[in-house]
């Protein structure tokens, strides 16, 4: 949350960007645009108290920019696009698979988001399936659809959904992804064991072991909370279709704990005060976006009904629960750790109850979809997060045996309708037994989890904190070479410093004599 003090400072940053040899042209252009935005002050309402909290690293806006002019996450209603076409883009409703694929690819180009790329590309299997006539031809076309996506939307916050019904298109997508080893899109199976066939679910596990996609989401849980359809966007964010999220800021819970005098001070003073400051800050950004910029009056997405203001929500994020609980336990002179000790986990739950209550106490003028409240979001982490674990996750290196791990996670997932998830590297023993992973996932869902993924411990593609990268791309980027995917920049600290590659491997190595 940098505020420039002089023109020279701005100029230096411009020059640094232009001269950075590991950035591609597009990455530089996007960086310059963000820089220009940040020359403006924060919107009115970002008071000094908030800026102090930002300085202390307690509140963080994820470099979202000072003056938002489009929502952070946009989830267009693709069904409507296919029914009505888009007059602005001069696209008629598609009639063939070629029409459908090109309609989507053209449309994606025009969907804004915080990453400059679409973070939600729809339920791609259900969108394409009705147009398939010839399977061999469809395979070829879908292959090139996915290649085009991967090479032009170079950022794995771009998220596609498949399922819950098994379709031919879904099967083709899985087959093709296995071969292509693409980073984009991030893919999620909307999984409902009552609807999704067992063989398709097993195929999803096997595909994950080959290319870290798709992740599994607890479809029934989301459907109940959203009272119908929802989309999974960006990392793993559940959001309303035909809407999205205005903004996302986050608390570093551990830093609040570190400045508290006692557990009581944390619960009664520090945490509520910080939440109050952050909700106010978020509201000021949303107000600026809605009332001082023109997205919600002029964008063709709004005019054509593909998104609407009342289906956007504010996302209240948090990280660092693990370290927060441990710090508070220390203040109480108790030797309990988050994850392994029940008392520590119960404190975590009490903290979540308080956060939920305080966040719900704030009534937003916006966020209609969620009854004018902000949704909680377990954020996956960002740069400068060393010593702060993602969301409410157990820190890497302290993972529990898988059942206990999932049961612990299950205590927390219910608080985060707008996204939370856990990722598990498995060893080769899964390859002959994908059903085993499915059994474990179902146990996780039965324990209250909402989003789970697996990948092969020794594969090139891995899920970092929510998004995918190739280890080989990171290696190249570490050596100062250009890589097309933006996400590699974000993954650099996560992998180089925070130890994502050291997650506890599951399978035979987790269990065997």
């Amino acid at each position: 949350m940098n505020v420039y003090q002089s023109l020279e400072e701005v100029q230096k940053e411009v020059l640094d960007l232009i001269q950075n040899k590991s950035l591609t042209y597009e990455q530089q252009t996007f960086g310059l645009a963000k820089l220009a935005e940040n020359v403006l002050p924060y919107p009115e309402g970002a008071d000094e108290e908030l800026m102090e909290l930002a300085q202390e690293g307690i509140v963080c806006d994820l470099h979202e920019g000072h003056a938002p002019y489009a929502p952070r996450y946009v989830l267009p209603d693709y069904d409507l696009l296919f029914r009505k076409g888009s007059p602005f883009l001069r696209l008629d409703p598609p009639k063939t698979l070629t029409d459908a694929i090109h309609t989507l690819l053209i449309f994606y180009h025009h969907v804004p988001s915080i990453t400059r790329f679409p973070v939600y590309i729809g339920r791609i299997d259900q969108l394409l399936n009705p147009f398939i006539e010839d399977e061999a031809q469809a395979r070829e076309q879908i292959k090139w659809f996915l290649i085009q996506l991967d090479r032009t939307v170079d950022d794995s916050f771009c998220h596609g959904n498949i399922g819950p019904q098994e379709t031919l298109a879904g099967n083709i997508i899985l087959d093709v992804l296995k071969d292509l080893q693409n980073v984009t899109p991030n893919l999620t199976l909307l999984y409902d064991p009552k609807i999704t066939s067992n063989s398709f679910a097993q195929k999803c596990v096997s595909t994950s072991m080959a290319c870290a996609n798709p992740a599994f989401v607890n479809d029934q849980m989301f459907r109940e909370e959203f009272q119908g359809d929802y989309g999974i966007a960006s990392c793993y964010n559940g959001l309303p279709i035909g809407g999205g999220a205005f903004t996302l800021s986050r608390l570093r819970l551990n830093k609040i704990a570190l400045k508290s005098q006692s557990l009581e001070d944390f619960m009664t003073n520090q945490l509520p005060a910080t939440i109050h400051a952050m909700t106010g800050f978020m509201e000021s950004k949303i107000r600026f976006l809605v009332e001082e910029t023109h997205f919600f009056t002029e964008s063709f997405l709004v005019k054509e009904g593909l998104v609407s203001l009342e289906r956007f929500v504010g996302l209240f994020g948090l990280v660092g629960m693990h370290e927060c609980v441990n710090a508070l336990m220390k203040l109480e002179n108790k030797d309990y750790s988050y994850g392994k000790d029940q008392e520590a986990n119960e404190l975590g739950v009490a903290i979540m109850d308080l956060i939920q209550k305080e966040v719900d106490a704030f009534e937003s003028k916006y966020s209609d979809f969620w009854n004018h409240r902000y949704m909680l979001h377990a954020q996956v982490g960002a740069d400068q997060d060393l010593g702060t674990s993602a969301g409410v996750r157990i820190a890497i290196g302290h993972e529990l045996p898988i059942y206990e791990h999932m049961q612990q996670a299950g205590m927390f997932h219910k608080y985060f309708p707008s996204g939370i998830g856990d990722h598990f590297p498995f060893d080769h023993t899964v390859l002959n037994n994908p059903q085993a992973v499915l059994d474990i996932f179902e146990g996780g869902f039965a324990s209250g989890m909402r989003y789970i993924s697996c990948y092969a411990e020794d594969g090139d593609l891995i899920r970092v904190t929510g998004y995918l990268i190739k280890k080989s791309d990171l290696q190249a980027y570490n050596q100062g070479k250009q890589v097309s995917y933006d996400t590699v920049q974000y993954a650099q600290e996560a992998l180089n410093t925070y130890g994502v590659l050291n997650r506890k491997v599951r399978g035979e190595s987790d269990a065997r004599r």
Partner: protein
Amino acid sequence: MLGRINQIIDSSLVDGPGNRTAIFFQGCNFNCHYCHNPETISPGNPKQDMELSEVLERIKRNRPFIKGITVSGGECSLQYAFIEALFLETKKMGLSNFIDTNGSLPFWELPVLTELTDGFMLDVKATDVKSHLLLTGKDNKVVLKNAEFLASIGKLYEVRTVMVKDELNNQKTVEEVGDLLQEYLGQPIRYKLIPFRPHGVRTAYRHWESPSSEKMERLKDLALAKGFEQITVAS
């Protein structure tokens, strides 16, 4: 009721279909040279005894995550009375019951156990009697009869053979297992070919070697030709 147990593994991906809790019983009536956990062969000691209720408690905790349980060893079937009682309870929990066995007990004489068991994973260490005697200290008459019997009642889930270079006639075993089960191979009986691994093996036999990976592939092709459809080569 007490069972003598070497170890319980809460999550196993390699002991039958899906994710399973595997219970390794103490004590074996074979003494295979290549045994990779020879500590489970001796009858053990009372410190390893577990109450049935204790074992069930552990399984109950794992219930949401598992498809079923697998009893292994040692040779689990030697403690069949305990296993019958265990399987009766796990069935009530909606779990499937699998047995990993050396096939030395005549299962056709254990109808209660056989009834409660969903699938057997049977080690056929060698079809040749002499080799079997040399390797395990016991003959293989009952083992081979069990293979047929279990296949005939549709409960032979998998046959397993450990392959050792030079010491065993691997090819003969695969061939003869195929012949023995010929009329049942319409069922999805799996064949797992396991290359010998020195890990855990007693010093006297640790120098044994596994067939080359090309040889393993050839054995797999042979099993395929015999009519097995699902063949895995363990790593």
